[in-house]
Structures are given as structure tokens and as C-alpha cells.
């Protein structure tokens, strides 16, 4: 008897749809933004987009609330109160630009290195890096050094590719995925799509992770290792494979340096280097001719075993033999490692057996002919359908580089890199291993009023590529020194500390972009804040000037002297470039743009526009014409279209050439951006089926990659199981060569630069008393929050407004706490008070929390009594940017090879706290009078409703 109302079911979503790219995180999915009356009505995934194929994550779907956040900066500001007070005066853009120019101009004219320009979670490093080169400072890097340079460097030195976002498991074909230390990853949606696929297909998914949430919760098997011990776990798997002779020898001989002969002459200057012929090619022993041959020859049968006597009478042994010896050592046997890892030996054996079984008994054969680099035709592609993926759980430890190398070696032994069902490169990868780029920034590269000698970041092959200024580090972060020789992404986490200590030297301006360095992206928050506010005797700041670009009122904003307010991601142009961190897929190269879909309603400007303008004002060569006029008067879109890095190579690879018909290289196309917008703001170049696999050795792929500018030559990428550059550093530590480390650093280099990866105990664990600090403390990213940005979002913060400390029941029992009780968590750095939640799915020696939920009062448009700052906490208070005292020198708390920040090495103790519910430490609230007041009620969408009736 109900009478049903008539519904208006055909209400159009909005009056306009714009297709652009999401930036609620670094995954860069394609989105369709529906607008109604100029307001954002709905954001959905773009089904045509290669990254997300239409789906959208929890953050992306809350984009409306990020875009309309009350924490958005309103106008350029000049600091008027003391640093940290949050007292600002609004200024005009003209004044802001003039101020910045007046600070930077004299530096460039005198000593460019006194500018440190560091960028955080941005995606325009190809522009910012170029700008820094043009400025001439050696002090540039982005967030990679505290993020995942261990992943990048270990992969690039080993096989010219990497996990991180630069490769994927073959989601469609893999039968076994072994995933290490991943909570969210940069490939947020692709991994979710992939996990959905393989689970539905019934492939096995094993997650190695101390914590069983998120992806690990749906894994078929959860391996709850103790943090920092993955190297032992993988070492034991390798041990088992060697023992069982479950190794793809053909693959090793074809694609790796396994047969290359290593000189065995302890004490000699070339001990441990490859024996080479007169052309410098590595030598192998050819079984057919029973002679030495160049490892680059094709028609040979290189021996994998057998000690050989070289022409000079010395001995040389193939890499394979050295590896086998190392990993067959009893110290890598499952029984020996089980206890340390916290995983029973039989499980390790079983997993090894499963890997072998899937790789060798369940191989995939694709009837897809292809041609290898030597021109030989193969009528099939043979796949070993075991794939792996790893991220910060491996990366953010001081043994991360070598552990990551071990994982790659495991994949290579199984023959599973870039084969059907294995791990797949995404173009422009593979690069040569390591890539041909060397770091610039040594004194010879740095000159007043001139661009830097070359790009900042690269891959040293030996001490000659390190960056010193006499005895001292050439860079403010001491990247590419004995402390972090292969610091391929710099050490952003050390910049503020070093600048305040004037070690290696003082700077005049610290210029930062999109990095919340006064809070969640720094280790040791309290000291970082005092470094930012440290003063000289005359009352001036030790770091004299700080320029900062943020879009929101973050914890970093109050510490800057000049604020350059950025737009939100829906208000600006952006370029997601193949020169930078592309969005490619395994069988397609792709890049993308963002374009403004709503007009800013504040006096803000896109940072890229500002940087280009600043470049022109400073008359930087790359940004000024010969006559002194700005080179890109049209701002960033002008730059995106017209900038050429090399002839025909620009920020975007799609629709190049006058008529837009070219990909990769080609003349500037004035219509390029329109073509992108028409196509949904992205471009995809699919590989041909014969190019899709074995890209490291696939002639069709390699030739194409050269043609489109991805690779210098079509020579194959040869997997470096044994890494010669590591041995070169090691030899230097033994006193060989022209550049040798000072005594202080020798043992460290000698120990850790092992050319064959090995496991060692993470530094903090080794240095602090494990009796005093019996537990590991780590963080995970919540899937619905992006670092510190998420909490300003009225919807996302309802999901997580405060973070708990998750502990194993047994830990709870041992200190007699139950859910919701408060505890003190202490490290050698300090202590925080937090509220616990007991759980079962966590390694019993590990406690953890969600990353970056804790907030400082006064920021992010939140009230002072927000749970984020009263119940939530930041683990970073306990993490130190330096290793504990002891020893002759205090190294940074980083990987000794890459300088990657070792966030997850943290050791803690826990005790019950009395009294009630407030976190500690609680920093003083920062002032925020320049910001609008936040609403106390939201009814977003009410307007749309009224209108629709």
C-alpha cells in the first residue's frame, strides 16, 4: 500500500567533465572530474587510463575534500614573527618574486653551492633538477634518499631496473607472487588491481611482512619475519635452490655475469675484479673451444664452474662458483637462520621448494617468436612464472641495498626477470646495469654564474666518481662521499642537520618544495626544529633564509621565511614525464599531464610557473633567451611543449613532431597539450608482442628503445650478480687506487661493499642494547592517507583521526596492558606516549603504527583539540638521523652504501603509562592567523541537490 515516490534517476552528474591526473598520491591515476556550476561534483577513475583502468583508491575518491581543504594557503607570505611562530604577512606575488630573486642572485654570482634546493613528494624532478643545474648548485635532490633509493640503486646496479614503481609482477601470468615489505607502494592501484587478479585466478600470493594487514591479510601465506632479517630469509631460499640445483643455468649463461671470471689474487689491486681482454671485455672460459673468450661473444659455451689460470698465471673463478660457495655456507641454511628471522626452517624449505616447483615445473610457454640481442630467433617465450615485488620494508633498513640485491639474485637464479609470469620492466627500463649517468657537483662542476657541469645524481663506478671538495663533501647532504658512496638520490634527511651544523659548510638559502621536513619526513623532529631555528651569536639564523613552497598549512610552513603558495592538483599543469618517474606499464611506455580543471579562488600560483619565472628573473641560461628575455613566457605549459633536453627530446614523449606523429623523439609540436587533453591527459605507446618480454636482451625492444631515446645503445643489459663497482670501492678501502678512504671509513667500506650481496645486522640493532630495547618499531602507510596530507581531508580524517600503537598480545601481557591503555615507547632518541591496540597478526618482536597521522597543533586547518595532535602520535620523534653514539664517528642513520634513511631500524622498549589519555611529546601550537577558519559543519553537495530538483 506504499506509494513509491517518483525518482529523478537521469540527473546528469555534472555540467562538465574534465579528464586529468590524480595527485592525492604519487601513483598518478587517470581521473575524470565532474563539475557542476564550477564546483567539483564527483571524481572517478578514467577507465582508459593505463595506471588505474578506471578504479580509484580511497584517497583519490576523497579528492573533493583535499581540493576544498581549509588548510589551503591563500597568498604569498613573508615571515614577520620568529621562525615557528606562524606569524606571517601576506605579500604580493611581485614582492615575493623580487624577494626570492634578491636572495638567490648574489649566491649564484658568488658561490652557487650556498643554495640548497631540495624537493619532496613532487613529480617534476625533471624540471626542478634542470633548474638546479642551471642555477649551478650541487645541492639538489628529491625525496628518494629518505624514500627508497635502496630499491632503485640495488636494482639498477644489478639488472638495470628496479622494484619501486619501475617494474611490476606479470599480473596476468604469474603463478606465484612473493612480496616483501609492501603496505601501499607507489603503485597503489596497480598493485590492488593485480592482487585482485591473481587471487581470483588462484595463483599463490605470499607476503613477507612483520605485519598482517592490508595486502598481507589477503595473502595465501603470511610470513611474519622480524624486521631487518629478509636478507637471511632470501639467503636461505637461495641456499636451498643451490642445494637442490634448482637454478636456470641457461638463463644465467645468457643474461648474467655468472660465467665471468673474477681474479683471485688477494692483496692485489685488481683482486676481485673481472679478468678482461685487451678490449676491456670480461673473460669467460669457453667450454667448446676450451679457451678464454670475451664474455660478450655469442657463439660460445661459457663455463659456470672451474677455477682457471689466466695468461699471467693468476687464478680466476667464475662468478657462479663464488656465489654458490657463499650461499651454500651453513650460515644461510634454513636451520641456521630460522630463529633470527622468526620463521620455522621447514617453512623456508617449503617456500624454496614451491618457488622451484612453480619456476621449473609449471613453466609458461608463449607461442611468441622473438629475436635476441645477438640476432638469434626464438620461436617461443619461456616463462618461469614466479614474480617478486619489494618496497620500503626492505628499503628502509641500513641493510636494504644488499637485501634488495639478494632478492634480485633470487629472481635471476630462477630465470624470472622479464619473462612471462615473472617480474617485468616498465619502459624506459631496463637501463644498462648500472646506468651510464655519473654524479656532478664536484668543484670542477661548480662555478659562479654558470650551470652545473651535468646532472646531480648518478651511479658511481668507483671512488673517482665521488664528490669531494678537497677533504670535505662537495654536497651539503654528503651524498657521494665515503659515508654514502652510491647515494644515487641524495640524502635529503641530512640537509637540515648538516646546514645547521655547517658541516661540511654553511648555506645561505634553503629552498624546499613539497616536503614536510619539520615533521613527518624528518627523523628526530625536535632537533630538526631546533636546527631550523638555531641562531648565531649575532642573533641571525644559522640557516639564514628558508624559502618554501607548499599548498597547505603544514608543519613546515611556519619555519619558512618566504612562502610560495602552490595550487591544488586540480588547478595546475603538471607533467608526468618519461624523463622523470613515468607511469609506464610493462608493455607500454606512457606519460601524462595534469591541466587546470578549476580556477584557483586564492592568490596562489603553480610552483612550476614560479620556478620558471624565477629562472628567468635570475637569468638562468636554460630559462632565458640570448637577449635576456624569458624563454618560456607562457609558463609551465610553454616549457612542457617547447623545452628540449636533447634535440627532439622533451618532457612529453607523445605526439611529438610537427604533425604529432612521432613518439619519443621529434620536433616540438605546438598542439601537443591539446592532443594530451583530448586523449584523457595521457599518452600510451604499446610495445609490440615480440618486444614485450626479455627486454634486457630483446633486439626489437632494444632497437626501439634506442630510437625513442630510452637507451644509449642496443647492447643488452647484463645482470650483475657480482657487482664490480662494489669491489672497486672495497679495493680502495684496502688502500688501492688513487682515491682511498681515510682510515676512519675504511673498515666500513671494506665490509659493506661486498660485490656479492650478504646479510648483516641493521646498525641500530647492532649498536643499542637489545636487552634495553627489545622491540622493533615500524610504520605502515594507511591506504586511505597520504603522509601528512590526508588529515586535512574532512572525510579521510574521520576514518583515521588518531593512530594506535599496535602490539602483539604477548607484549601486551608482558607489560599488563589491554586495548586502549596508554604506554610509553622509548628509543635511544627519546620517548612518546601512545595508546595501544593488541593484535595477533604481528611479529611478536615488533610494534607498529600508521605513519604520519600525528599532527602538530595549529596546522592543517585542524582545531587544537583534534585527536591527531592529542591522541595521535608520530613515531619520528623516536627515530634519529644519526646512529647512536659510540665508535669513532657518528654516521647518519642510513644504509652505508646508498645513504638511504633507515627509518625501520628503530629499536624500542615499552612500558605501561599511568594516568589518562594524552600523547606526549606535544609541541607548542604554531600560530595560524593567516589561515581562514575551518567550518564546524559540512554539507557538501547540498547545493547540487537543490539544483537537481
Amino acid at each position, binding site marked *: *500500500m*506504499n506509494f*513509491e515516490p517518483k525518482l529523478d*534517476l*537521469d*540527473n*546528469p*552528474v555534472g555540467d562538465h567533465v574534465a579528464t586529468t591526473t590524480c595527485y592525492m598520491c604519487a601513483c598518478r591515476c587517470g581521473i575524470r572530474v565532474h563539475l557542476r556550476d564550477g564546483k567539483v561534483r*564527483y571524481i572517478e*577513475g578514467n*577507465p582508459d587510463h593505463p595506471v588505474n583502468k578506471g*578504479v*580509484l*583508491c*580511497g584517497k583519490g*575518491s576523497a579528492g573533493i575534500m583535499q581540493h576544498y581543504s*581549509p588548510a589551503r594557503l591563500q597568498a604569498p607570505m613573508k615571515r614577520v614573527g620568529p621562525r615557528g611562530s606562524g606569524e606571517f604577512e601576506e605579500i604580493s606575488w611581485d614582492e615575493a618574486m623580487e624577494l626570492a630573486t634578491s636572495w638567490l642572485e648574489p649566491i649564484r654570482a658568488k658561490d652557487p653551492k650556498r643554495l640548497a634546493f631540495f624537493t619532496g613528494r613532487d613529480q617534476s624532478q625533471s624540471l626542478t633538477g634542470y633548474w638546479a643545474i642551471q642555477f649551478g648548485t650541487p645541492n639538489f635532490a628529491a625525496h628518494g634518499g629518505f624514500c627508497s633509493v635502496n630499491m632503485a640503486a640495488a636494482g639498477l646496479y644489478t639488472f638495470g631496473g628496479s622494484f619501486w614503481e619501475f617494474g611490476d609482477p606479470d599480473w596476468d601470468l604469474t603463478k606465484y607472487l612473493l612480496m616483501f615489505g609492501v603496505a601501499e607502494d607507489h603503485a597503489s592501484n596497480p598493485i*590492488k588491481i593485480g592482487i585482485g587478479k591473481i587471487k581470483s585466478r588462484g595463483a599463490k600470493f605470499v607476503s613477507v611482512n612483520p605485519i*598482517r*594487514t*592490508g595486502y*598481507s591479510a*589477503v595473502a*595465501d*601465506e603470511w610470513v611474519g619475519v622480524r624486521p631487518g632479517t629478509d636478507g637471511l630469509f632470501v639467503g636461505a631460499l637461495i641456499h*636451498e635452490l*643451490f642445494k*637442490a*640445483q*634448482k637454478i636456470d643455468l641457461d638463463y644465467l*649463461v645468457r643474461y648474467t655475469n655468472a660465467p665471468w671470471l673474477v681474479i683471485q689474487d688477494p692483496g692485489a689491486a685488481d683482486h676481485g675484479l673481472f679478468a678482461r681482454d685487451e678490449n676491456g671485455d670480461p673473460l669467460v672460459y669457453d*667450454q667448446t673451444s676450451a679457451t678464454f673468450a670475451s664474455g660478450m661473444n655469442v657463439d*660460445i*659455451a*661459457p*663455463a659456470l664452474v672451474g677455477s682457471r689460470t689466466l695468461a699471467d698465471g693468476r687464478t680466476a673463478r667464475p662468478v657462479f*662458483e663464488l656465489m654458490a*660457495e657463499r650461499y*651454500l655456507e651453513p650460515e644461510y641454511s634454513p*636451520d641456521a637462520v630460522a630463529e633470527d628471522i622468526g620463521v620455522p626452517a621447514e*617453512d623456508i624449505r*617449503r617456500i*624454496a621448494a*614451491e618457488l622451484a*616447483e612453480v619456476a621449473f*615445473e609449471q613453466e609458461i610457454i608463449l607461442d611468441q617468436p622473438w629475436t635476441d640481442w645477438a640476432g638469434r630467433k626464438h620461436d617461443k617465450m619461456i616463462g618461469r612464472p614466479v614474480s617478486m615485488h619489494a618496497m620500503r620494508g626492505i628499503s628502509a633498513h641500513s641493510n636494504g641495498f644488499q637485501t634488495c640485491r639478494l632478492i634480485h639474485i633470487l629472481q635471476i637464479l630462477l630465470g624470472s626477470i622479464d619473462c612471462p609470469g615473472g617480474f617485468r620492466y616498465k619502459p624506459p627500463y631496463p637501463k644498462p646495469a648500472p646506468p651510464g649517468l655519473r654524479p656532478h657537483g664536484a668543484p670542477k662542476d661548480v662555478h659562479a654564474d654558470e650551470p652545473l657541469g651535468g646532472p646531480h645524481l648518478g651511479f658511481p663506478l668507483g671512488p673517482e666518481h665521488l664528490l669531494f671538495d678537497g677533504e670535505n663533501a662537495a654536497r651539503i647532504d654528503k651524498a657521494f662521499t665515503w659515508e654514502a658512496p652510491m647515494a644515487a638520490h641524495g640524502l635529503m634527511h641530512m640537509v637540515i642537520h648538516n646546514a645547521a651544523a655547517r658541516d661540511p659548510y654553511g648555506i645561505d638559502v634553503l629552498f624546499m618544495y613539497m616536503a614536510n621536513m619539520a615533521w613527518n619526513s624528518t627523523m628526530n623532529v625536535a632537533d630538526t626544529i631546533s636546527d631550523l631555528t638555531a641562531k648565531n651569536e649575532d642573533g641571525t639564523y644559522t640557516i639564514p633564509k628558508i624559502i618554501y613552497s607548499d599548498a597547505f598549512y603544514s608543519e613546515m610552513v611556519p619555519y619558512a621565511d618566504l612562502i610560495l603558495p602552490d595550487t591544488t592538483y586540480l588547478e595546475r599543469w603538471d607533467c608526468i614525464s618519461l624523463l622523470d618517474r613515468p607511469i609506464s606499464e610493462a608493455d607500454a611506455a606512457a606519460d601524462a599531464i595534469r591541466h587546470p580543471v578549476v580556477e584557483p579562488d586564492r592568490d596562489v600560483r603553480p610552483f612550476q610557473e614560479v620556478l620558471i619565472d624565477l629562472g628567468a628573473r635570475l637569468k638562468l641560461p636554460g630559462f632565458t633567451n640570448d637577449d635576456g628575455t624569458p624563454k618560456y613566457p607562457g609558463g609551465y605549459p610553454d616549457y612542457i611543449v617547447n623545452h628540449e633536453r636533447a634535440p627532439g627530446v622533451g618532457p612529453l614523449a607523445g605526439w611529438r613532431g610537427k604533425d604529432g606523429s612521432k613518439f619519443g623523439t621529434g620536433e616540438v609540436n605546438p598542439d601537443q597539450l591539446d592532443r594530451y587533453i583530448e586523449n584523457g591527459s595521457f599518452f600510451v605507446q604499446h610495445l609490440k608482442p615480440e618486444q614485450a618480454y626479455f627486454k634486457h636482451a630483446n633486439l626489437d625492444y632494444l632497437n626501439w628503445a634506442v630510437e625513442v631515446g630510452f637507451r644509449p645503445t642496443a647492447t643488452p643489459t647484463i645482470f650483475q650478480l657480482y657487482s664490480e663497482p662494489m669491489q672497486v670501492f672495497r679495493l680502495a678501502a684496502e688502500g688501492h687506487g688513487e682515491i682511498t678512504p681515510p682510515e676512519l671509513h675504511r673498515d666500513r667500506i671494506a665490509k659493506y661493499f661486498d660485490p656479492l650481496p650478504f646479510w648483516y645486522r641493521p646498525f641500530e640493532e647492532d649498536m643499542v642494547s637489545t636487552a634495553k630495547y627489545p622491540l622493533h618499531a615500524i610504520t605502515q602507510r594507511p591506504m*586511505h592517507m597520504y603522509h601528512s596530507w590526508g588529515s586535512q581531508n*574532512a*572525510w579521510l580524517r574521520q576514518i583515521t583521526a588518531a593512530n594506535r600503537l599496535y602490539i602483539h598480545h604477548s607484549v601486551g601481557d608482558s607489560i599488563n596492558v589491554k586495548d586502549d591503555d596508554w604506554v610509553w615507547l622509548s628509543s635511544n632518541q627519546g620517548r612518546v606516549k601512545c595508546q595501544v591496540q593488541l593484535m*595477533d*597478526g604481528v611479529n611478536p618482536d615488533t610494534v607498529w603504527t600508521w605513519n604520519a597521522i600525528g599532527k602538530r597543533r595549529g596546522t592543517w586547518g*585542524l582545531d587544537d583539540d*583534534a585527536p591527531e595532535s592529542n591522541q595521535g602520535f608520530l613515531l619520528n620523534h623516536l627515530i634519529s638521523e644519526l646512529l647512536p653514539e659510540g665508535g669513532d664517528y657518528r654516521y647518519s642513520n642510513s644504509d652505508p652504501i646508498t645513504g638511504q634513511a633507515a627509518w625501520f631500524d628503530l629499536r624500542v622498549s615499552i612500558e605501561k603509562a599511568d594516568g589518562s589519555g594524552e600523547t606526549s611529546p606535544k609541541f607548542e601550537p604554531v600560530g595560524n592567523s593567516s589561515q581562514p577558519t*575551518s*567550518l*564546524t*559543519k559540512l554539507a*557538501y*553537495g547540498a547545493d547540487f541537490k537543490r539544483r*537537481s530538483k
Partner: protein
Amino acid sequence: MTSLPAPTSKKLGLVIDLDICVGCQACATSCKEWNTGGYSAPLSDHDPYGADPSGAWLNRVHSYEIGEGEDSRTLHFPRACMHCEEPDCVTVCPTGASYKRQEDGIVLVNPDTCIGCKLCSWACPYGAREYDHDDGVMKKCSLCVDRIYNDTLAESERIPACVRACPTGARAFGDLGDADSDVSKSVASRDGYGLLEDFGYKPVNKYLPPRPRRNSNIEAGTQASETIPAADNSATEKLFAWADRVLSR
């Protein structure tokens, strides 16, 4: 009960695969985003930037732990209206604002006649109704009725926002009254179930249970280990002997 429509053959609903839900919250925020400007507009939020933020959400994602030790597991669990076949949330409503559609079984609240007495929310065993304090009316999952029949959307887009967004593909939409529909087939093949079936509301939405954990998917899991020789000094020699062969490139 007089106010439920006679049972109809069409039963639109959702099927949620607990085996692959990773708890990412995409369905929850996407639902909020669509509906705050759609049929249920607005879904108000209180104290959005303050001490006690809360708001109306039509879909919420929980996570639980089941058991301890070896056999324990973590479960992510999205929860919204089940569009029950015989729900009291409809019959208790004094105004008729809460109703179940005759043609497809969708349970809706008429925002123009709801008086906000909240009784329906008390009658729902699944906690699926959310009162909007600001708007003064009851809100609930509308099964995105303004998407699934919306002729201004492309055919492939006529699915609920949460299904459209879900990155893992854990959510599916369809006619559970039609045994041949994809959703019905997946329910049949995976032993899908409704929540609290004993309660008697006959929930239309179904959940697919997590598949059993497989600590080995290899039938002959010991195959390889059998060939693994005892850890003695000869392992290296055996390996070298095995590897010492002509391997052409």
C-alpha cells in the same frame, strides 16, 4: 506486513568478495563522494576539522582479527545496507518514507517524507542506516539508484560508485534474483552467504568467504626438497658437478 511489496523476481544487490578485499576504503569514500551530491545529498559531517569528527557514511569498512596463532587471520569487512527482502526497517517506519521498491527490491528512504524518528535504524541489525543530524532525515545505501538507471551515463558506468571504484574488484553488482547473473553464479560457486541469515530479514547482498589459506599450493610440495641433499661439505661439489656442462648462450 502490509508495507513490503510482494516478493519480486528482481533483487538488485552487491556481492562482496572477502577473499580479496584489502580494506582500502575506496568503496567508503567513493560512496560518500557520489552520494553527498547525489540522491542522498548531502551526507553531512559534524565537527569536520575538530575534536570529534563524524558524519553520515553509507558504507563502512571494518577490520577484524579471527583467532590466534597459526590459524588466525585478518579480515577486512565492508558493510552497507543489504537491501533485505523482508526487513523491519521498512515496516516500522511510521511515515512510509522507508520503502522497498517493487521493481527491483532496492530499499530507500524518501528524504521528502522522512520525519527523522530513527526507528528504522533501530530495526536494522546491520547498523546500515545513518541518521543525518543536519538534514534531519535518515540516510542509507541507495544502491546508487541514481547511477544504475541513469541514462546520462554510459551503459558500463551504470553501476554503483563503490563497485566502480573498488581497486581489487572485490565488489560486484547485479541481480541476485536471476540465477544466471554473474553475481548469482559467483555466489553459487563460492558458497556466498548473507549476513545473519538466521535473523530472518533475508539480506539480498551476499559475501564470498575468504578462501582457505594455502600454506602449500604444490601437491607434491616435497618434490624439490627431496632432491635437496643433506647439508654437508659435498653440496658445493655436487652443485659444481651438476653445473659443469656445456651451456651455449
